[in-house]
């Protein structure tokens, strides 16, 4: 298969999968088989594309050109490849997990669930391979819309209310600010193509560039920078596989990925560094890191706690992007992957706990460790990766982020990163520790509770092991991140 068709195949396969899912709606086994086969194929194709890309090939496809100079086009570059790799592999794992979750939970409307899920992945892949800001925006919006039925899946009044928050903030920021930023960029630069070194340098007064960057920073609502983060906790009303893949990986990472793309390929790191464009804005990210962590500590609902943890971790990436130094961008790019594997494990574990025990609250988990050892071990490993301790992959990205802060002489930011790591420990570590070492509230050990279905355990084991592997073998990620930041 030649590389151009490979790109299109990766984007279109989930779409075909969606039609397959819909047409096999009356045969759950066939439907799930369609999901698994599609996900497996996508994973294989993404890996093949990555191998071809690492061998130094670069490819581009143009689909249509609605407005002269403004095309719907795809192109493979390092950052997008990295993101597509993460999303593609994790979709497969999540599909394995969802089958166990959705069935043992006897969810309704499962066909709609799998279909919307496949559509969301298709959009995510399209975002990853976008060759210009216009294409990216198109699929960014489609992603919001395709995930809306997933957020409101339960159909309850609460789900509808959350759906409204979700749609309101994401569409509101994207139309009100992001689109405005794109239009201004188009007006100033005359193009929206992602180009190494950026397209704005020399065309925009640095003071205005700061304002434009703010439009992107707040307009890309999926990056969940405060005060536009409320949609993410609201989205937690969705079934856990959705929270796991979409609201820890695909959707939120589309946000920070977009911000990184804008930073590297629209503004250009040199333009940002030499004019100190992000100097003030960087503190918004720093504040989000700290505040979100503090809010996470107060949440007793496990998924809500994880959601705020995600808000905080996303701002690591945003912060890295705004540092705009080589190490900062490197750390940000790698954190996309590192955080993805760790956070999805945490959500998988939360879902497994919910399926096995119907417990949602952190305070109810004491002593569960013995009954569900695999789940809580996975949770423990992922926690350490989030905190950034060796021997886990999360260490590398934090390392580079810290390096980036030191490199640019922002010692206060180093302190923020340190403090945040401590906060991570404070709100995550007690969960597995108390599950293993505390006694249940009732006093006696759980005997009637067993681990969740095997497919769910399998998924958790894969992702948590990946966290370990990424510590010892971060090379592919490292290579892609280096390419993305324009290093040698």
């Amino acid at each position, binding site marked *: 298969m030649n590389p151009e068709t490979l790109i299109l195949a990766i984007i279109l396969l989930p779409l075909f999968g969606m039609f397959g899912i819909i047409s096999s709606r009356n045969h759950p086994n066939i439907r799930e088989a369609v999901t698994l086969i599609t996900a497996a194929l996508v994973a294989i194709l993404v890996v093949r594309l990555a191998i071809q890309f690492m061998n130094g090939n670069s490819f581009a496809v143009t689909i*249509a050109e*609605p*407005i002269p100079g403004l095309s*719907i086009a795809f192109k493979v570059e390092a950052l997008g490849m990295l993101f597509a790799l993460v999303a593609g592999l994790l979709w497969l794992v999540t599909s394995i997990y969802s089958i166990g979750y959705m069935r043992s939970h006897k969810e309704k409307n499962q066909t709609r669930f799998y279909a919307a899920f496949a559509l969301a992945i298709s959009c995510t892949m399209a975002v990853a391979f976008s060759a210009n800001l*216009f294409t990216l*925006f*198109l699929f960014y*919006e*489609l992603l919001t*819309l395709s995930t809306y039925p997933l957020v*409101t899946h339960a*159909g309850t009044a609460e789900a*509808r209310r959350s*759906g*409204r928050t979700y*749609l*309101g903030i994401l*569409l*509101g920021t994207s*139309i*009100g600010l992001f*689109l*405005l930023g794109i*239009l*201004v960029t*188009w*007006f100033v630069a005359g193009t929206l193509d992602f180009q190494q070194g950026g397209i704005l340098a020399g065309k925009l007064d640095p003071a205005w560039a700061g304002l434009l960057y703010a439009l992107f920073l707040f307009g890309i609502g999926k990056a969940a920078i405060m005060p536009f983060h409320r949609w993410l906790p609201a989205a937690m009303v969705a079934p856990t596989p959705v929270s796991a893949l979409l609201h820890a990986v695909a959707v939120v990472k589309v946000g920070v990925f977009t911000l990184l793309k804008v930073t590297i390929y629209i503004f250009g790191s040199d333009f940002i560094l030499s004019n100190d464009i992000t100097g003030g804005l960087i503190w918004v990210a720093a504040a989000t890191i700290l505040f979100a962590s503090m809010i996470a500590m107060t949440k007793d609902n496990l998924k809500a706690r994880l959601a705020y943890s995600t808000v905080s971790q996303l701002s690591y990436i945003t912060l890295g992007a705004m540092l705009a130094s080589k190490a900062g961008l490197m750390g940000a790019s790698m954190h996309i992957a590192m955080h993805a594997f760790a956070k999805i494990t945490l959500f998988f574990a939360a879902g497994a706990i919910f399926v096995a025990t119907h417990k949602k609250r952190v305070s109810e988990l004491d002593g569960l460790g013995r009954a569900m050892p695999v789940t809580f071990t996975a949770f423990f490993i992922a926690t350490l990766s989030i905190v950034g301790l060796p021997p886990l992959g999360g260490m590398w990205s934090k390392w580079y982020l810290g390096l980036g802060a030191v490199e640019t002489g922002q010692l206060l930011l180093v302190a923020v990163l340190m403090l945040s790591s401590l906060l991570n420990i404070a709100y995550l570590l007690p969960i597995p520790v108390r599950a293993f070492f505390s006694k249940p509230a009732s006093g006696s050990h759980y005997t009637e509770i067993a681990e969740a279905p095997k497919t769910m355990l399998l998924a958790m084991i894969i992702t948590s092991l990946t966290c370990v592997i990424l510590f010892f073998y971060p090379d592919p990620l490292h290579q892609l991140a280096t390419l993305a930041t324009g290093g040698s």
Partner: protein
Amino acid sequence: MGNHISLLLVVIPLIAAPIVAVLPRGGRLPWLTTLIITFICAFLASSQLWMVLNDGVISYELGGWAPPWGIEYRIDAVNAFVALIVAAIAAITLPYALLSAEKEIPQHQIPLFYSAFLLCLTGLLGITQTGDLFNVFVFLEISSLSSYALISLGRNRQALTSAYQYLIMGTIGATFFLIGVGLIYSQTGTLNMQDLAKLLPQLSQLKTVHTGFAFIMIGIALKLAMYPLHLWLPNAYTYAPSVVTVFLAATATKVAIYIMLRVLFTIFPDDFLLATPTYDIFILSGMAAIIFASIYAIYQSNIKKLLAYSSVAQIGYIALGIGFASSKGVTAALIHLFNHALMKAALFMAVGAIIYRIGSCNMKNIDGLGKQMPWTFGAIVIAGLSLIGVPGTAGFISKWYLVTAALEQQAWISVVVILFGSLLAVIYIGKIIEALYFKPVTDSNQSAQEAPLLLLVPLWVLVCANIYFGLDTSLTVGVAEKAADVLGVVDIGIMNK
């Protein structure tokens, strides 16, 4: 044959109208005749546009009398474009009309309905074809009178009062227009648009000319429902039969906008306009329409009324584009003219399909219908996204050009208002979608089925057009740019005044 097209476009529906009226009542012959006529018109209009784009302006002398004494039909890219919109929408509406009209209009009135429809089409096409200002008034009255009749055919008794309300407002508008034309005529002695354009520059200091201009403007503004002269529109659209709403929403106001463009850019000289507050009024009215009409739309419980208010807001976008006084702005206005016809026709058709099934389009009664009528629902979602301006749809192209035009003028407030309008559209479209899909199905809707194919096919043709023209804009943008060029829009710019 070639150069008679412009006349045939008007004459064919005009002759067909009385014939249809006397056709037998029971069968479907009136419908079939009208269908054929509209298809012929659509074909003629597209070949006319093709000819204009290839060979330039067509001038047709009615009865062989040379202008400025005789009536001249003068076709350039602008009116050929608008004529195509009108004829194409009529042709798409007609297949839809059969079942929808049988459901909503008493049987004995159906031939009269098609007859009035053809007269309305005659009037609208006539306005686009003629190059004579008084002739515009004649056709304006033909289209208006027939649309009063069409609206009053609605099922509810409110249809009568709405038609009456529209009659009063429409007549005031037409009278103002006529007074204005008379005043201009008293000074220039001509009614031919080209001739007027030549004579008016020397007369632009005259008070009479100014007065005439003001009368004409207000007259047309009433017709096109420019905020705050829009009060007739919501009721008229709401209580008219569905198919009438589809047709009028997509064409009637558009034709009025066309006349507005003609008067502003072809007839009156640029420095005359600059001496008047015309452009400022357009911008203010446009912004007010976008904000207030959208907010009204959010609070409507009748979906047709909601969409009607949304139409007022969308006309605001077009007014804004005109107000920028630049070729980019007028291009954007013309693009939106076309795209808005597509999305509103699709939305009103979808609502018509709902009415066909459950007999109501009230928010309260549509709960959960999305699952019963998936294709209708899908159409509402896509057309709604187009209305919001999501990329990949025609609506996005409109918004894109409009905002670029605003940025060019550094009209920051307008930029913010345009984007804010999109957000308000998210809310009112979201309300419909939420009720259709996310509320549990009510018992009375349990038995509702998907709309018949004859309603769905025209609907989905329009929906696909909404996507197609979001991806390939060579027709819309190409023609609109050419039209703005033909109108001779000079980049005055609101900043340079």
